[in-house]
């Protein structure tokens, strides 16, 4: 039985990547909070998860033509989960960003990133314990 990083780390590695990408999308909303006609975006966790599990995400893929090529499965397809936010209070200039909503979503996402990180870290700690055999 060999130690396989993919099996050992499970979903947490990709969850961490997703949280990082969502942070960038939310930061972009905040940066564009005063841009006319900008529509706020968000990443839908469930949609991205479903696309990953069913394998029909059409993200960046490299063809492997040699047995030693490394596959690119750690990349996420953003378009699968990218949605427009429903505005609570539409403004006259067509902008749908509510800075308070975005800031609270960003804070929540930061906590969720910490959670994913803690899970991932504990996986590594478990592997280290297994390797040491103490």
């Amino acid at each position, binding site marked *: 039985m060999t130690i396989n990083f993919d099996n050992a780390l499970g979903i947490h590695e990709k969850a961490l990547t997703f949280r990082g*990408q969502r942070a960038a999308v939310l*930061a972009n909303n905040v940066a564009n909070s005063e841009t006319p006609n900008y529509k706020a975006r968000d990443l839908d966790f469930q949609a991205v998860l479903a696309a990953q599990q069913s394998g029909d995400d059409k993200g960046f893929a490299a063809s492997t033509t040699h047995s030693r090529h490394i596959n690119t499965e750690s990349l996420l397809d953003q378009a699968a989960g990218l949605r427009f936010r429903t505005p609570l209070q539409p403004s006259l200039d067509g902008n749908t960003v509510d800075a308070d909503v975005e800031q609270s979503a960003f804070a929540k996402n930061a906590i969720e*990133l910490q959670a994913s990180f803690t899970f991932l870290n504990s996986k590594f700690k478990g592997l*280290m314990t297994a390797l040491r055999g103490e």
Partner: protein
Amino acid sequence: MSLNDVFNISGSGMSAQSLRLNTTASNIANAETVSSSTGETYRARHPVFATMFNEQQQGMGQSLFASQEQAGQGVEVLGVVESDAELQSRYEPDHPMADEQGYVFYPNVNIVEEMANMMAASRAYQTNVEIMNATKTMLQRVLTLGQ
């Protein structure tokens, strides 16, 4: 798109908002700059913001809605436009800048509007700084992976 991009995105937001603060400062400073003709009078300036997209992804031409399939990469200032609102002409024959009829022209700067703009810009700047700070904490935490 990852945590590293947040620094670029928030940075672009901060630079756009500081440019907006600059134009506001310029407008307020020149609110009483008179001249003797409509052509020379200072006009209120305002920046025009637009969302930046990743051009490499846009150029791939996968679909008509390529820009909808990606979130933006920050904000950019397309340009600074001058307001075409009417200038105020005041009858001040004793003014050294008065024209033949005794009129001087004051800029079309609306001080109340500029103050509101200034507050909105500084709030937006603050929010961008906070996002950047939170991301810095997140990245520092991620760097301790496996320790």
